[in-house]
């Protein structure tokens, strides 16, 4: 069960695994930001196809990510339904024209090509970054991740916090399981069978010991780190840091080109939306 819920690093030897973590971090963040802002269907489709090709190249097996894909499909479908139910005419108000499939714009429930295009854009926005995020998660070693955060300019203390978080998630998860089983053995119900209040009470009985043991752990770990003079200097070096190689520069150049194209499209489209109905 633990394996299903947590996608993590797997060692392989592809060019994506060999790229430095900083390159992948910059790539993921810049592509997801430009994709978040733009509503150009062509651009989003392009990025999606690009990231699927990269994903295929990374040799990640489908079984590793099938669980997360199911969750994402469920999430996207449910959200699209809500977006449509709350504002069926939203596409019309964005694009300013109406090509009706059924109903007419005066009624609340109608369906237009504009709305379909808008919904398709939203779907693309939910999904286009997923292959990139998965590549990033599955091809970057957690320790290298902290080193690359530091390299892109985030203070090493914050990078270290992220590293501690990644390291301690499995521990906290194990503690949680042990405590949860112990409390269930004592009769606290937390499954779907119980009603909300019983479940809430059960949840409190689990999180109390979990949180208090973790507070002790914070104490112990910070004392150990103080003893080793953590935070003494303004900079630190990283054992896991990788030097930029030529492949990194090529990758960064490609990312730059994609971002520039995305920004250029704002100019061409006169705004964030690509409007084929004009």
């Amino acid at each position, binding site marked *: 069960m633990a394996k299903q819920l947590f996608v993590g690093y797997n060692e392989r030897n592809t060019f994506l695994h060999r790229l430095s973590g900083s390159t992948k971090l910059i790539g993921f963040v810049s592509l997801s930001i430009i994709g978040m802002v733009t509503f150009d269907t062509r651009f989003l489709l392009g990025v999606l196809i690009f990231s699927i090709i990269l994903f295929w190249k990374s040799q990640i097996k489908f079984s590793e990510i099938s669980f997360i894909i199911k969750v994402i499909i469920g999430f996207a479908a449910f959200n699209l339904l809500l977006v449509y139910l709350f504002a069926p005419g939203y596409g019309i108000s964005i694009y300013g024209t109406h090509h009706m499939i059924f109903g007419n714009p005066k009624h609340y429930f109608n369906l237009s090509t504009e709305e379909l295009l808008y919904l398709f854009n939203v779907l693309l926005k939910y999904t286009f970054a997923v292959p990139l995020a998965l590549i990033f998660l599955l091809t970057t070693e957690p320790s290298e991740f902290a080193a690359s955060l530091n390299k892109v300019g985030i203070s090493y203390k914050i990078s270290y*916090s992220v590293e501690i978080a990644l390291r301690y998630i499995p521990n906290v998860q194990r503690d949680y399981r042990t405590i949860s089983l112990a409390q269930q053995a004592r009769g606290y119900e937390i499954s779907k069978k119980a009603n909300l209040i019983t479940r809430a009470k059960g949840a409190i009985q689990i*999180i109390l010991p979990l949180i208090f043991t973790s507070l002790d752990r914070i104490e112990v770990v910070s004392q150990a780190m103080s003893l080793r003079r953590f935070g003494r200097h303004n900079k630190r070096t990283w054992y896991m840091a990788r030097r930029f190689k030529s492949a990194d520069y090529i990758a960064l150049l490609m990312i730059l080109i994609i971002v520039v194209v995305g920004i250029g499209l704002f100019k061409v489209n006169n705004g964030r939306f690509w409007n084929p109905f004009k």
Partner: protein
Amino acid sequence: MKKKDNNSVQVVVATGIGAAIIFVLMKFIAIPTGISDTQVNVAEGFLPLLAAIYGPVAAGLAMFIGHALNDFVTYGSPWWTWVIVDGLVGVAFGLFKRQLDIQSGSLSVAKLVLFNVYQVVVNFIGWVLLAPTGDVLIYHEPASKVYLQGITTWILNSASVAIIGTILLVLYAKTRTKRGSLKKEK
């Protein structure tokens, strides 16, 4: 100077482990409500305690990192507007640290009431004003949908903080030695 040094290490560790706890709580103990992407969030109830002990930086960053990691492994990519608002709520809770003064071991009812009023207001600003507005501006989602999600989240998060948060604060305060509890024998 020495004391400050030690505190900053503690903040780093508290941020990391706090984020790990928030991640685990978000992932495993979430009670769904029926409205998409909104659930009774136990992690939100842990936030006041983290904020009261370690302050705004640790609470804000821990929530930001924990939420972003959770989004990462659940949905593939973080929903940045909500992740950022969650971090800001953590910072806001942390700013109340001095008023709450939990390390003194005395947590009066007045303090708790004041904190709860404060947290409801903070959650209102975060979830009803900031988060949905960000969604409309950045993600261009229909306003009615995101405001409904925002209002639901506001109510649920405030309730979670009011119940779980208050319980945790009271229990933690009990483990602290009260200031001035030792008296000189006459």
